[in-house]
């Protein structure tokens, strides 16, 4: 089995928000799939841990979930970003950027 990196704690929610920001509506499996694909299979989501995160975000009001049908006509819950979610994403992205720029500076050979 290929060695894949764990997602740093706390970033999962940001990744979900980002994924849903670019693609309007996705169900759970599609979100997991999208995150893995976009990271070039580098980031490995313990797939199930997506769901507690999604529940947390539902409570926070960052997402809403609506039941619909998949292409194969299976019932699935589709998640959509709310305005609050979009605001949260902006906030997390900007703070992430600040931190990552700082880390980059330290790691860059002098």
């Amino acid at each position, binding site marked *: 089995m290929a060695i894949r990196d764990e997602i740093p704690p706390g970033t999962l929610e940001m990744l979900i928000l980002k994924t849903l920001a670019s693609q309007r509506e996705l*169900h*759970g*499996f599609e979100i*997991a799939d999208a995150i893995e694909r976009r990271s070039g299979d580098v980031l490995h989501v*313990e*797939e*199930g*841990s997506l*769901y*507690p995160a999604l*529940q*947390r975000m*539902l*409570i*926070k*009001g960052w997402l809403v979930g609506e*039941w619909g049908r998949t292409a194969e006509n*299976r*019932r*699935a*819950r589709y998640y959509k970003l709310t305005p*609050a979610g979009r605001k949260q994403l902006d906030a997390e992205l900007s703070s992430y950027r600040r931190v990552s720029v700082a880390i980059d500076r330290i790691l860059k050979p002098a």
Partner: protein
Amino acid sequence: MRWLDELLRRIWYLIRRDRFAAELDEEMRLHVELREARLRQQGHDPTAARYVARRRFGNKSSLQERSRDAWGLNWIDNGVADLRFAIRRLRNRPGFAIATILVAALGIGATTAVFSAIDAAMLRGLPFPRSSELVTLTDVSVPFDPGAQGFPSGRHFTDISDVAAMREVFSSVAAFAAGGLNLTDPIRPRRVRVGVVTAGFFATLGVRAQLGRVFNDAEAHPGGASSVILSDATWRRTFGGRDVVGSSIDLSGTRYTIVGVMGPGFDFPNESELWIPLTVPTTFATFAPFRGFLPSRVIARVAPGMSVAAASARLLDTWRRLAGPPDHSGRSNLEEMIDEARATGAAVPLQRNLVGQNERALVILMGATALLLLIACANVANLLLSDAASRRREVALREVLGATRGRIARQLLAESVLLAFAGAAFGIALAPAVLHVLRAMMPADLAGVAPAKLDLRVLIFATGLALVTGLAFGLWPAVGTARADAGETIKSGGSGGATASGLGMTRRVLITVELALTVMLLVASGLMLRSLDRVLSQPLGMDPEHVGTLEMSFRPESKRAEKIAKLHAILARLEGDPGIHSAGIVNDIPLRGGGGISLSIEVDGAPKPKSVDEMQFARNLNTSGGYFDAMGIPLLRGRTFTASDDSLAPQVAVINMAMAKRFWPGTDAIGRTFGFAGSPGSVTVVGIVADVRERSLERDVQPQMYFPIDRNTPDNVAIVARSGLPPGTLLARLTDAVHSVDRSQAVYNVRMMEDVISTSVTPRRTNTTLIAIFGALALLLSAFGVYAVVSFSVTRRTREFGIRAALGASGRNIAVLVGGEMMWIVGLGLALGLAGAWALSRVMTSLLYGVGIHDAATFVAVPLALIVPAAVATLVPTWRAVRVDPTEIMRAE
């Protein structure tokens, strides 16, 4: 409002949680199936695809749990589950559960009852508006007008008009006194408690009449109309709640017009049933119906924004200004008064003033209760520790099966909190009984105003107490058990893990602390019991057995001849009764509490006093000749009164031994003479009687002088009769004798002399009983604690004992081994407890009588009282353990 939306979503989830759980499950299933399909497309065989899909997803049930956690509801579900589990476990061990609940009930019940008493007396404000502004003013007088009789007027002290003038300091001021009068009821004459109050009294307290009005200034002025205000209870009980304003009633022979009825619940001071005006200035007439004198108290309301301390300081300034410069004798009385007031405050919060001396007793009682609660907690903690130790294996197993340590600790805590609450429920059921006993200790002035009761505040206190106790005795075992290494416990195979060390360290500390606290309570009980014993064994100077008494008051305008005639008729009737041995009359029954007058006397031939300090006083008593016989007061020398000692004969007196010794030391007092300061004539001593405890059993007897009641006949008298009849019959005959002479004469305080004496020591007896009960309970709990610890330890060590026995140790050797260990613990607890008691008993000084705080007998008796039960509690389980046949134990392993 985002948090509000969030809260609503959480609540919505709580309501629909089954649907939400099903949806989550469906989502997860879909995910796994889609992954499986994807893997198959990528060329995995079906079995591998299913396996990999599941593995990549992770532990579904744990993920579902984490999701539920996200909704913040797990703790509810877990809490309910923990409680159910706790109930199930406790039901399996009813003995343990009952023991723990009873111990907790004891601690919580006692503490709750004492707290409610303290809450009523000290914490809860008085039931008057802005009651913290109310103060009692010390050494402020009510002006007195001697009228035509020309009483010498003394120096001018601060009086209530001076206080009323200090508008910026005190917004209002009032004076009151409490007394009793005869209410001539059409059906049944009876004695009523009367508040004698100035016009401003009700306004100062901030209470209004529900019907009619309160007193006006004209009524509270000498010569004003005689008005009366009824309490709500009197109005309803005696007047049936009719419209009575404007009608009149007869109080001790005077007509009073009812002007108002106070609101429900108001009966200050001293459970008053009605109020009459206290005139300003007071005159001789004001207190004439009340034995000529009532102590009055001055209260005031501090002006808004003025602190009690500041008001007190301003009042002191006024004192100083009014008194003028100190007189020639150097430090004046006033200076001393000011010094004293500076220490206690010239203005004292009313509530503190009312609680008075009871404060110390209540605080000490609270301390004793707290000790008892601590002992109960230590005991329950010990029970739980033993229990937790025997559960180690079960806990370890559950841990291996995946329960987190936090969860296990929570489960154990749920159990102890459950036990504590069950204990609290029983304890609260127990509290009213304790409270009933405590009422005797409540200050009389507060009894009606702020009765101790179990209200919401007290219930909240008890619940909080239960929670704290539950956590206190459960936390340690819970943490300890949860922390134990599961692997080690299971490997060791025993039901209890490491047992070789006998008692665990924690249990040793707990039992030592418990014993030490018990010793402290026992010392307190011992000191109190010794004091009570000292008080009760005081020579009374009389024989109260088989003596009945009643009190009655003549109408103030009664003529002396009329009073004497009635008294003689009553005496004749009683003396004619073959069931009654002797009968007599006295103005003041010993130990009835309050009352009594001392007169300044001058012994003929002795130097005249130069100052107030040199004046000599003796108690003034008026009796019939038969009184000494009826009360059982031994005549030591000379004679008592005879019929010839009437108003025409030379004046004679019978004195007590203390008076004889004080004024005629070393010589025979019979035939000697003395006089009263400032009045002519002299009195001849004709008899000497024993010293009678008069004001209190705890006060030294003062000089007492008795005069024939025919010469000086007071309005208030008591009839005393000695008889072998049963108390009920005797008291009925006493009442009948009075009524056969005058049907309309009200009688009160009809009781046996033994009851009078018993009542006079009730507060001390209650105090002592409670502390002694607490001491006994503590001893019981400690013995139980020692028993539980030892029996737990020896059961654990059965195998060790078996090996020892197999190797030749006798039962005695083993008993010595266990007993030796316990001996150290008991010894240490005893030493710590005695040291603590030695240091702390000083706080009890004011409660003790006739014993030192380091009373040797107590400090010797307490160790004995502790060692015997501790030894029994140690030896019984030990003996049971060593009697088991060693081969049986080895076989059982």
